């Protein structure tokens, strides 16, 4: 498959690249190195720019008012959008809009009015509440949050952990067990407003990612009406799986973007830094690090675009998405690590974005399904159907 951008894609790539370099990076230089927000007035100004570019709400399907951009092109653009200090978790500080994991496109009309459209307009924020203290890799078995029938609705009791941005969201999609006897066929997805009595954000969970932090939630006799069920009762696991599979492509793209930025920094530095009377770029040890970077980036880019292409064609892409997530998060981590090595002491400082990328990239091997789970998904396919 040929993944070289066509002329239309290249034009969009150039546009986004210019935007990152001319609008985002200069503002970022004035922020705390761990910041994940722009000043509100800068954010509002830049949203107007992305709207003028025709790229606001880039991950929103056309029928919901998003720009008509296919997933392969979106992936190419996501690679560009991540190429700045905060880019891994907050590409372009959210100025391109979008719904993240809360793309509740299966919502009924009433839910679309109350949640989906306000989210797509940027008026509401949502969290994705799947992981629990009992585990996140295998949510079908681990989910212990219970939802019991009461008064034309459901009472939720339980806890969630590592839930990003729940303290700032107006609502979240929450997965709970509605039938204890049925395993994955006993999980339902609920839309829970953050001001529902019994819903609590208990604390910040401090991780390597100091901004865009995670939180711990508690549901204590939290009653929600039947109108808050997303999709069908006991079919929530499919909702979670669908989100996670689709999300793996932009997730991988973010890793690739950061890897490219780190690699470019390493190349620049190797060309100007001299040790023992010779430029680093002339040392074979350094050249090989740069070569390995190049290979990691090209490999991840190829597999991620392959997954996007399958998604575009509407054919199953679960295995391809797992390969993309795996190669991009693991390869991206190696690239940032080598770039730091080439920069020496400077690479360890908060003066450069490398240390932030290093910390945040480490999370990528666990978040949204650890590497081992991705390998498990791939192994199932290999073992289930013999190699071509």
């Amino acid at each position: 498959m040929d993944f070289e951008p066509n002329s239309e894609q290249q034009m969009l790539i150039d546009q986004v690249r210019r935007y990152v370099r001319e609008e985002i990076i200069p503002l970022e230089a004035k922020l705390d190195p761990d910041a994940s927000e722009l000043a509100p007035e800068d954010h509002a100004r830049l949203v107007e720019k992305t709207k003028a570019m025709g790229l606001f709400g880039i991950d929103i399907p056309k029928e919901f008012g998003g720009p008509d951009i296919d997933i392969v092109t979106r992936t190419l653009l996501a690679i560009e959008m991540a190429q700045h200090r905060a880019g891994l978790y907050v590409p372009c500080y959210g100025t391109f809009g979008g719904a993240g994991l809360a793309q509740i496109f299966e919502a009924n009309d009433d839910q679309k009015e109350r949640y989906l459209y306000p989210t797509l307009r940027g008026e509401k924020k949502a969290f994705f509440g799947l992981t629990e203290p009992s585990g996140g890799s295998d949510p079908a078995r681990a989910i212990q949050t219970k939802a019991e029938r009461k008064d034309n609705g459901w009472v939720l009791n339980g806890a969630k952990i590592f839930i990003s941005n729940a303290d700032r969201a107006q609502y979240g999609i929450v997965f709970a067990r509605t039938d204890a006897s049925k395993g994955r066929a006993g999980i339902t997805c609920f839309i829970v407003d953050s001001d529902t009595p019994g819903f609590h954000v208990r604390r910040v969970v401090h991780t390597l990612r100091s901004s865009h932090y995670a939180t711990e939630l508690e549901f204590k006799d939290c009653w929600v009406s039947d109108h808050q069920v997303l999709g069908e009762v006991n079919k929530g696991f499919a909702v979670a799986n669908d989100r996670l599979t689709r999300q793996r492509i932009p997730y991988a793209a973010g890793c690739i973007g950061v890897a490219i930025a780190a690699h470019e920094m390493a190349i620049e530095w190797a060309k100007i830094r001299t040790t023992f009377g010779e430029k680093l770029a002339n040392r074979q040890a350094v050249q090989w690090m740069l070569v390995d970077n190049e290979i990691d980036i090209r490999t991840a880019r190829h597999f991620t675009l392959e997954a996007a292409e399958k998604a575009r064609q509407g054919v199953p892409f679960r295995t391809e998405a797992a390969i993309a997530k795996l190669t991009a998060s693991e390869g991206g981590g190696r690239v940032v690590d080598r770039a730091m090595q080439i920069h020496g002491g400077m690479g360890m400082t908060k003066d450069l974005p490398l240390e932030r990328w290093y910390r945040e990239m480490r999370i990528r091997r666990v978040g949204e399904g650890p590497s081992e789970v991705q390998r498990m998904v791939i192994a199932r396919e290999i073992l289930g159907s013999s190699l071509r």
Partner: protein
Amino acid sequence: MSIRLRLDKPWRPLAAPEIARLPGQLGVYQIADATGTILFIGQAGARSTFGLRSELQRELAERGAGCQFRVEVNMQYRSRWFELLMVHKADHGALPPDNARNPPPNLGRLSPSSSSPPRRGEAG
């Protein structure tokens, strides 16, 4: 060792000799009046020349004598700072007065419970 939800170390006088003993590390701090009412929750981020020491020196220069402070060294100063602000708001119904004048955009909300389990490694 792990961090507690609330910063509850003893207060120290906001005075030059005390501040001179502070590390140049990153972290969070609180400023209180003489009675221990919290006036401000701040962070010493990576742009502070000498971390907590620089920030507290600046606070002393701006506020003069009569205040108290306490610090927590923390590389996760951003999420810890947000957490302390949200916990304060949950406990007191409002941000400390000097934060309320210039609140961070999009501050979230927490409802920490006294019954919530201590963090792993946290004593009691």
